[in-house]
């Protein structure tokens, strides 16, 4: 009978994955502790709804657990790339599904890329909220890199594996995205200064 208690000591993801695949619930609990909020942050950034983000996160972990339990995944040091590829696919599916059924006024709530509203900038007290809105101006490919880098916490090499792109392309996209975000935020601040 697998141990159902959480494991102690430093978590080695590779060992945890092997144990979880063997049905060790403690190892699975540790994997969730390691990656649960990172997956959640990815989903939350794109869909911008707590309940939907948790639903997507739950779905991702159910999928991963099923794959581990059936032996469909073999640990070769690429668990994080696989995990977040599953996450991205699930987020995209959900965003597409919501866009098909959502009213036009729900655009901001389902991750559509829209220009940040001036009214938000003029009243925003939180730089994070401004940055969150500016994320909506990024192209999807650039936004993927930003979210995998900052929300999921992957290295550029892992992002390249996840997106199956050369690492040079990933670095260029990240640089372009940061530049775009910086320009958007400066424009918003300038707009606020003019309005004041």
């Amino acid at each position, binding site marked *: *009978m*697998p141990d159902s208690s959480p494991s102690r000591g430093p978590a080695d*993801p*590779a060992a945890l994955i092997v144990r*979880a*695949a*063997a*049905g060790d*619930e403690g190892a*699975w*609990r540790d994997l*969730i*502790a*390691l990656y*649960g*909020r*990172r997956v*959640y*942050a990815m989903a*939350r*950034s794109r869909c911008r709804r*707590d309940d939907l*983000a*948790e639903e997507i*996160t*739950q779905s991702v*972990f*159910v*999928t*991963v*657990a*099923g794959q*581990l*339990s*059936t032996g469909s995944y073999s640990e070769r*040091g690429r668990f*994080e790339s696989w995990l977040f590829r599953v996450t991205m696919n699930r987020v995209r599916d959900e965003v597409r599904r919501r866009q098909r059924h959502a009213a036009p006024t729900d655009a901001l709530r389902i991750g559509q890329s829209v220009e940040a509203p001036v009214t938000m900038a003029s009243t925003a007290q939180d*730089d*994070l909220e401004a*940055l*969150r809105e500016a*994320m909506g101006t990024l192209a999807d490919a650039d936004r993927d890199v*930003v979210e995998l*880098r*900052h*929300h999921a*916490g*992957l*290295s*550029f090499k*892992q992002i390249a594996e996840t997106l199956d792109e050369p690492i040079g392309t990933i*670095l260029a996209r*990240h*640089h372009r995205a*940061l*530049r775009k*975000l*910086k320009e958007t*935020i400066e424009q918003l601040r300038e707009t606020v200064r003019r309005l004041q």
Partner: protein
Amino acid sequence: MTHNPDNRETSPETPADLIEVAGGLDRLAHAERQSADAGLESRLFAGSRDALGIHAGETLKFPRSANSRAWRLAASFALLVGGTAVAFWAASRQSPPPASSQRLASQSQDSPLDVETIRDELEDFLTAAESIDVGEIAASPEETGSFWGDDVPSFMEDSM
């Protein structure tokens, strides 16, 4: 294996003029992670444990509903009725026939004794029939002058 977000602002991949934006993204990501309701990990574990536990040989549990209960009852009833019918059929093939059936079967069979008896009774009947004077019986009123002939009943004599 895992990336340390705390060191990202000094990461060589990030240009110096964009460090502020990168730091803001790290703070935004942290805020997104913390925006989940308390107990996220417990809910994720509870929701995905079954998917992992299948491999560990745990019993599969299917949610019961009123619909599935009705189906189970219907299936049980059908099995009961079918089983009873088969049992009756099998028993009827193996047990001896009832006494009434035996009597009917014996009556339908021609035994030598019965034929002999019927023959004797038939001969007695024919002998008795030959002894009857059929001429008197067959005589018409025209021949006798009266239907009753000479033997007119006494109660008829008054009316004649």
